[in-house]
């Protein structure tokens, strides 16, 4: 076990835990945002840099601070480590920079994007971004493409988190989906536009943090906040069959996997459940789904960090109180 302190909160976690996962064990404000890390996909993380934190004490043995901010998703905790997330102005400044970088080439087409309302980038932008853009140049554009019969790739919106490539690599049996080209021209692609046809390819849609991969059977049928999420299941030979149905009236508009409060799927589901079972009679309905994530779906629970300094003082006080109490 290792003892770590994150934003003044002390906790004990198993050795080998990442800083991000340690923070998630406690939850709340001290959890850094993660746009590329996905606990269920091996090798993911380290790319988007939104989860950067400051390590002001490396470990009990070697108390020197780490020279640079580190990605919390891929840095393991050491016994005696002290981490600053939202209590460090450096971190907040760097994160603001990352959010800006992610947004400069991202189209501001939320009004016509299916992901709007459940988009991680939208949430991140609200929380950390600037209200105005400093980018005057033309945004880079790509052609839309189809990935198989059911998935639309809208590369303009992609933030190159690489999650979908890990899905293709780890859930499907051929490695035909990956990244081509370099730098800000890099794009995800199926090898020579070969369609991915595979029982689990649809999970790419769910792991995509933005609207780059969308469900063609749902596209443009409704804004997500007009649909009603219901937990449901069915007997499925390929997957657990545990899904969320997004209904409007009695119509099932969309089927997705069940996401936790960090936007990660609890279990991957198969394409049959996702794309082919669009009747309520296909499913056993369990009841309405509670969406933990603060997003439009859970009724405008946006927390603005616009006056960061004040928030930090308040926050530190709260932490001190919590620590004193217990």
């Amino acid at each position, binding site marked *: 076990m290792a003892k770590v302190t994150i934003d003044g909160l002390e906790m004990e976690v198993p050795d080998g835990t990442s800083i991000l996962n340690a923070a998630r064990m406690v939850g709340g404000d001290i959890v850094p945002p993660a746009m590329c890390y996905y606990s269920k996909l091996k090798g993911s993380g380290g790319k988007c840099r939104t989860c950067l934190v400051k390590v002001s004490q490396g470990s009990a043995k070697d108390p020197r601070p780490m020279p640079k901010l580190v990605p919390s998703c891929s840095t393991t905790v050491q016994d005696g480590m002290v981490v600053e997330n939202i209590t460090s102005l450096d971190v907040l400044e760097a994160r603001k920079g*990352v959010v800006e970088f992610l947004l400069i080439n991202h189209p501001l087409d939320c009004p016509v994007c299916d992901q709007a309302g459940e988009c991680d980038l939208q949430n991140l932008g609200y929380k950390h971004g600037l209200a105005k853009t400093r980018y005057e140049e033309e945004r880079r554009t790509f052609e839309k493409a189809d990935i198989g019969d059911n998935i639309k790739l809208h590369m303009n919106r992609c933030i190159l988190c690489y999650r979908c490539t890990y899905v293709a690599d780890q859930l499907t049996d051929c490695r035909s989906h990956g990244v081509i080209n370099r730098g800000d021209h890099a794009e995800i692609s199926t090898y020579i536009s070969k369609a991915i046809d595979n029982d689990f390819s649809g999970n790419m849609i769910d792991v995509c943090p933005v609207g780059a991969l969308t469900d063609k059977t749902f596209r443009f049928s409704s804004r997500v906040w007009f649909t009603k999420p219901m937990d449901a299941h069915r007997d499925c030979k390929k997957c657990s069959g545990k899904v969320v149905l997004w209904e409007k009236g009695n119509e099932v508009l969309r089927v997705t996997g069940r996401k936790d409060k960090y936007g990660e799927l609890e279990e991957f589901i198969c394409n049959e459940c996702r794309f082919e079972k669009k009747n309520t009679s296909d499913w056993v309905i369990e009841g309405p789904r509670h969406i933990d994530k603060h997003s439009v779906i859970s009724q405008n629970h946006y927390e603005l960090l616009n006056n960061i300094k004040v928030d930090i003082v308040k926050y530190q006080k709260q932490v001190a109180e919590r620590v004193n109490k217990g």
Partner: protein
Amino acid sequence: MARKILLEHLNVPGIETLEVFRKMGGYQAVEKVLKTMSPDDVTEEVKKSGLRGRGGAGFPAGMKWSFIDKKSEKPRYLVCNADESEPGTFKDRYLMEKIPHSLIEGMIVSSYALGAKTSYIYIRGEYFYVLRILEKAIAEAYEAGFLGKNILGTDYSLDLHVQIGAGAYICGEETALLESLEGKRGNPRMKPPFPAISGLYASPTVVNNVETIAAVPHIVNMTGDEYAKIGVGRSTGTKLISASGHINKPGVYEIEMGLPVEEFIYSDEYCGGIKNGKRLKALIAGGSSVPILPEHLITKTANGDARLMTYESLSDGGFVSGTMLGSGGFIVMDETTCIVRNTWTLARFYHHESCGQCSPCREGTGWMEKVLHRIENGHGKMSDVDLLVDIAKKIEGNTICPLGDAAAWPIASAIRHFREEFEYHVKYPEKVKDPKHFFYAPFVSEKMNASIA
């Protein structure tokens, strides 16, 4: 004449062949280590020599070798970084092209020290003809029994392969190089784990620059202590410098560490002074990634000491008034140079070469290039200059690999030292329309003029 080690026999006819190379003392180090030294003895000599990595970062080579995981069951690898793609750097090519056996001898001796049974030279795609030279030299070495099974009758065996890259700068970064060598997309890996623990094929690996490896046989022959006597302080030995730009004698020079920068630029033995009697304006001392220096900080440091060609002296003053020895790509610029144009050119390079994995570098390099393009062509705003500084700051230190830093430093330092020139481009857009704007009438600082008058 200064002492030459790596290039001593450069002008001997036929030095590229094994026969002549041996006549000049080549492959003696292989005999010496295999027959009289243990692998750890070799590492110890390299440690004593104070040899530091010549690829850019200047990490002590002996120390890097001692980090290699000896407890691992997996095979160990030595990989030579011959990707040399940093603008301004062309010393490794020169060495491999002229004296290929010096690298091969270095590979054998170093592999022995590390306990590697298979080693690789990863060479950049554009050096295709050098690949042919190396392949020929390797074939000769196999034939003469310096490579392959039971080298010189001992029980040490080594296979050496050359792998050609596909022309990406990022594949010079050691972990991207390993990915590429494994046949994957050349994306840098997250560190830790460092290659010494988990490198090529997840096995303990050492990656060293061509020049670093080529210096090892000489260290073995002359002993580490003798090698350490050359140079100043922690900058020992000799260094290859590839000099280019507005000088009379561009080329590759071997210098003893500690040579004054002034002598290097103006002496006829080296660069031979500025071309066409022009005035020196700026210097990029160690390849395009290092901070640029303005005239008054080139030959003297901020405290007025003579600036020397050493790791320490060149970085004296840190980012405020210093630079770095880097890979030894020495680019001299005279008064006709437009610093904004030069900075934009570099920005274009880094934008083109970013691997695109992490967001600050992927998006930031492109953004900086576009803003610089605007300023250079007379479409900039005053606020763009500070915007550039801010973007550079947000990239620096926040990326997976140092390419992000390498893209940010040249821009941040150019603005630090030449801000007035950037502002001039914004103030007088019509004067910078002609791409050769400072060619006929060099830029003159208004502030300086005012203070003189």
